[in-house]
């Protein structure tokens, strides 16, 4: 016999080989547990990188974009530490397709080398233009101009040449070869593109640097700027101020206009929240902070769960391995030798399990991100895999060795006999039951003596519940944000004025300017791709009070700067003055209307907004009093009041730079005034209306236009009043996601209902939704058609089609992420629980045999194990839902106290469903395992140990 051949490796390998099946199951358990952590983390981080990449492609890598930047000296801004870096796109033309018209065109620019990186232009197909005559288009621009071109095709454009802030009168026709299709910038796909073409235009067409501007033209610069400081409001403000100052210095700024824009330069902030047309980036920082907290929770839970999974997988044959240790020690193996043998075994297992799990994680994530749809690119975050791999190895080694080192410390016989368990039983005092249900009693005793196993299972359930709870709440929030009543349109016709002109009566401009009558709406609805057209009407309406005006109404007047008091104020020095102004002072116009139109009665000027019935029904969930009855709204019998429950005022006292004390009054409509907010306490007034109350509404109108409305004209001569008494059917205190900017203390009704207050009122805005299967080509077609309606009437089209598509993709991607994570959780949880049960059944073969010998049938045995399973689930679910609830509450209050946004719903039904499904899967596995044991004879059950 060759003694040399019996090495530690051979012993370890021999061990593995001899128990192939058990070790395979164990390795599967470990691999699953490791995939669980590495896969999910790798996935989450890769997906985040992918989202981040998509974000940069849509918004650019710069902090701000400055249009018409040729007037500004950026080097000075760098010297002044305002910006770190800048780069230009050189706009040398404005190109459009003659067929689709000027409005569909775009600036054409070549980019400085650094500008590629700063603006983060991305190629969808082909390459960037390299020489004259080559051109690249953003995909949406190509569609919008109905060019229908592929890479390599020739494109003929009509090109206007920029000069100063305008264009040369002569246009030229130019033909280019399309060499690349670029990723759409959000500013181009969600823009007000029928406004003046030289404003707010981000180049959607790229040329090569070899391209020359037409003679007589002047290139226009678009600057991409990287701020020196943080991208926050202060930095933006300072830069804006610096730009204004410089413009003023050069005499380029019209002082009166500086507050709104910075002509002739225009800043578009893409990565901040000062000026951005989408809401998606609002609260970005808060979202990032919240996401970070969630990521930390997720990572911790995942790693712990993975650890539990690995320990559990090892526990499944721990007893057997303990016996092996006992045997080895009995034949003279030293502790070191044992640790070597089993350490080697653990290394071999780690070496099998770790690369396998990392490989599976890698490919699984790659495939899932592929499923997430267009625009998502797989950006592997290798460090996550490495960290998870190392963690996995450490965990496997610890899980394998710690119990075995303990086992090698006891005597051989004790190891063979499972001394831990026997000791535990010896020391335990239990009281005999004189009458019992055998399966239940055995189950509960098993649970009593095998608590560790229960803790493991509970842990994994807790993790599943928490992840699914937060995960689905997160998705729901995102989906809700996207599909909410106020965001779900593809195109909007928006008037730029509406009822502007008077705050008490309806002027001609506001009422009759619009062409959007019911027939136009029906015409648009009949277009082939249109699914819905929703219209909004708005008219001024006054609530006329029989008695004294309430403090609530006075405060509301102040809050919205309506007709009550505000215009008389020059300065406020004392609280008394402020209170007086808030509650007593009435201005000239108010008094005039009160006396001459409303017969000396007090009134409040508000609006009536009308919507489609389906939109009104969406508000139902926010109703705090009463009920929405569409028929009664349609008939003008009822109306909905949108008003906060409380309104309050408080004062702030501060000193100006001269050391003078000033008082500022603040009106708060969110929740009245709380004491901690108010060092100078004001008062809180409650809404006095209830559902069922009747209000007097007076809709005043005049043919006067806003232009004719001067300070001298307080009440037009031709004022007409439509007085109505109407019942408040429902009261809504607040509307979350209120992006249609309906203000508080206004009335809401249906468009039909509006006719009773103001007959044949045209639509102020219209919102158009396309059928679900519409393509980009349809978008181009629709844009072209809808533009026809806007020409010359002061309306603009606001298109969200492309960005909606992107958002839908994002939501879809989020669903894929969460579902993948949950599926992974599910399989890992099922594997861990099943492993645990299988191990227990394997260890309890003798007991099963004994129970069968004394007359227990398959039913009773299954019942006993099922009871254990149920108990594990019960504890796990209780702990899971409990912890989820606690975490949710903590996060809610942390968010509240730090002013972070936290609008995740308390979401448990998915988790409950997952637990039920898990229970079912485990039960099936349990049943099959018990059945398998029943296939053996009782003697085999008893003897096999």
């Amino acid at each position, binding site marked *: 016999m060759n003694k040399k051949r019996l090495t530690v490796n051979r012993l370890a390998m021999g061990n593995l080989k001899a128990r192939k099946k058990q070790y395979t199951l164990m390795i599967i358990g470990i691999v699953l547990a490791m995939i669980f952590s590495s896969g999910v983390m790798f996935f989450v981080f890769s997906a985040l990188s992918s989202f981040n990449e998509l974000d940069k492609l849509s918004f650019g890598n710069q902090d701000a974009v400055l249009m018409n930047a040729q007037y500004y000296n950026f080097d000075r801004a760098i010297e002044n530490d305002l910006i770190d870096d800048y780069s230009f796109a050189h706009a040398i033309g404005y190109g459009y397709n003659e067929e689709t018209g000027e409005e569909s065109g775009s600036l054409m620019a070549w980019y400085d080398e650094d500008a590629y990186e700063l603006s983060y232009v991305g190629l969808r197909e082909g390459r960037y233009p390299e020489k004259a005559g080559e051109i690249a288009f953003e995909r949406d621009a190509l569609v919008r101009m109905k060019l229908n071109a592929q890479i390599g095709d020739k494109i003929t454009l009509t090109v206007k040449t920029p000069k100063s802030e305008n264009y040369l009168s002569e246009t030229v026709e130019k033909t280019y070869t399309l060499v690349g299709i670029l990723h759409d910038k959000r500013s181009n796909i969600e823009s007000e593109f029928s406004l003046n073409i030289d404003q707010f235009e981000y180049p959607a067409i790229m040329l090569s640097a070899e391209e020359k501007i037409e003679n007589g033209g002047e290139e226009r610069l678009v600057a991409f700027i990287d701020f020196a400081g943080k991208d926050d409001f202060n930095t933006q403000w300072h830069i804006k101020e610096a730009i204004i100052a410089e413009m003023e210095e050069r005499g380029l700024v019209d002082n009166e206009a500086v507050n709104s824009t910075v002509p002739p330069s225009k800043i578009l902030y893409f990565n901040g929240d000062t000026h951005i047309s989408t809401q998606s980036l609002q609260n970005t920082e808060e979202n990032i902070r919240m996401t970070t907290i969630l990521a930390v929770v997720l990572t911790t839970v995942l790693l712990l769960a993975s650890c539990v999974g690995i320990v559990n997988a090892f526990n499944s044959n721990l007893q057997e391995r303990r016996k092996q240790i006992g045997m080895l020690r009995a034949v003279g193996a030293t502790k070191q030798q044992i640790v070597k043998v089993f350490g080697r075994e653990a290394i071999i297992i780690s070496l099998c399990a770790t690369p396998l799990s990392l490989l599976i994680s890698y490919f699984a994530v790659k495939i899932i991100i592929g499923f997430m749809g267009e625009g998502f690119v797989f950006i592997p975050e290798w460090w996550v895999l490495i960290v998870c791999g190392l963690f996995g190895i450490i965990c496997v080694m610890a899980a394998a060795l710690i119990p075995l080192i303990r086992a090698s410390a006891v005597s051989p016989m004790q190891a063979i006999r499972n001394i831990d368990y026997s000791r535990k039983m010896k020391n335990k005092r239990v009281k*005999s039951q004189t009458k019992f249900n055998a399966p239940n009693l055995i189950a509960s005793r098993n649970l009593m003596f095998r608590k560790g196993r229960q803790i493991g299972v509970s842990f994994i359930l807790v993790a599943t519940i928490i992840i699914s709870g937060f995960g689905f709440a997160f998705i729901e929030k995102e989906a809700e944000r996207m599909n909410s009543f106020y965001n779900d349109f593809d195109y909007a016709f928006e008037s730029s004025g509406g009822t502007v002109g008077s705050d008490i009566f309806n002027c001609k401009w506001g009422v009759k300017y619009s062409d959007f009558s019911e027939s136009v709406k029906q015409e648009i609805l009949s277009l082939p791709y249109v699914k819905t057209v929703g219209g909004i009407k708005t008219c001024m309406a006054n609530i006329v009070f029989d008695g004294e005006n309430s403090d609530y109404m006075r405060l509301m007047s102040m809050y919205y700067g309506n007709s009550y008091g505000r215009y008389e104020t020059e300065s406020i020095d004392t609280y008394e003055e402020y209170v007086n102004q808030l509650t007593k002072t009435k201005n000239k116009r108010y008094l005039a209307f009160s006396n001459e139109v409303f017969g000396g009665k007090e009134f409040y000027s508000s609006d009536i907004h009308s919507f489609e019935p389906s939109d009104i029904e969406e508000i139902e969930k926010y109703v705090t009093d009463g009920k929405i009855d569409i028929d009664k709204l349609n008939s003008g019998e009822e109306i909905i009041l949108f008003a906060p429950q409380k309104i309050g005022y408080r004062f702030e006292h501060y000193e100006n730079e001269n050391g003078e004390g000033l008082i500022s009054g603040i009106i708060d409509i969110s929740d009245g005034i709380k004491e901690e907010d108010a060092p100078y306490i004001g008062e809180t007034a409650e809404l006095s209306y209830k559902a069922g109350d009747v209000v007097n509404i007076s809709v005043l109108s005049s043919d006067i236009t806003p232009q004719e409305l001067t300070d001298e004209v307080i009440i037009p001569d031709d004022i007409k009043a439509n007085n109505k008494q109407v019942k408040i059917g429902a009261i809504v205190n607040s509307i979350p996601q209120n992006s249609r900017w309906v203000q508080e203390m206004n009335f809401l009704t249906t468009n039909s209902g509006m006719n009773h207050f103001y007959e044949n009122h045209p639509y102020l805005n219209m919102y158009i939704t396309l059928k679900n299967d519409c393509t980009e080509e349809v978008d181009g077609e629709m844009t072209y058609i809808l533009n026809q309606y806007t020409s010359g009437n002061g309306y603009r089209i606001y298109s969200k089609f492309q960005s909606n598509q992107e958002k839908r993709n994002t939501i879809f991607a989020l669903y894929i992420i969460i579902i993948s994570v949950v599926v992974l959780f599910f399989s890992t949880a099922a594997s861990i629980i099943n492993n645990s049960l299988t191990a227990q059944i394997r260890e309890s073969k003798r007991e099963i045999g*004994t129970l069968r*010998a004394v*007359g227990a049938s398959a039913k009773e045995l299954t019942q006993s194990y099922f009871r254990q399973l149920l108990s594990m689930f019960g504890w796990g679910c209780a702990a899971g839902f409990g912890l989820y609830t606690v975490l949710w509450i903590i996060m809610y209050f942390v968010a509240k106290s730090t002013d972070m946004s936290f609008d995740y719903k308390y979401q448990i039904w998915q988790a409950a469903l997952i637990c039920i499904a898990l229970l079912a899967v485990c039960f099936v596995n349990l049943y099959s395992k018990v059945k398998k044991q029943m296939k053996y*004879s009782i003697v085999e059950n008893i003897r096999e140990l």
Partner: protein
Amino acid sequence: MNIIECVDLRKEYLSGENIVNAVDGITVAFEQGEFCAVTGPSGSGKSTLLHVLSSLENPTSGDVIYNGKKLSGYNDNQLSVLRRRRFGFVFQAYNLVQELTGYENIVLPVMLDKKKVDEAYINKVIDVLGIGDRLEHLPSALSGGQQQRIAIARALANKPSILFADEPTGNLDGKSGREVLSLLKYVSKEFGITLILVTHDLNVAEQAERIISIEDGKIVRDTKAGV
């Protein structure tokens, strides 16, 4: 009257590539109330015979007839009911349920049968076996002899017709073994139970009214005491 019998009973095992005839065509009958010892050298098939007779294992062929009914016609549930009501088992390794106390182990068959415990009877059994002070303990806190007494009490709990004992004294020291054996004898007489006991110990076998000797799966001798 025969309480249990077997006809041309065979049990084959696969040992590597060879078929082992552990029980090789045995036909034998046991009378109500008799105490029979089955003996023979290691590997002779005595334990296998006991297991097949007591339905712990299925025969390869042949029939086991209990009270005139063939067990081959019973399904798994019916066999479970039969084991919990009519048969009692005492194993060499006691085979108590480790998580249940002595008392709970004893009444386990009654509880599985969802019947009321006959307190007087169980107390008598406990009395006879002398384990009244060990009932609250878990098996791991008991000695071998005490565990085997609990196992005997469990086997008797449902007033079985037959008590099967497989080397019941095999794990016990001489004194405890003798005590357990005399208890088995006593209770089978006291409660009128057929006792079929497998042993390789001739001293134990000699205590029986009938001794069946088995070699290579066949009965080589079947003698009654005093014959």
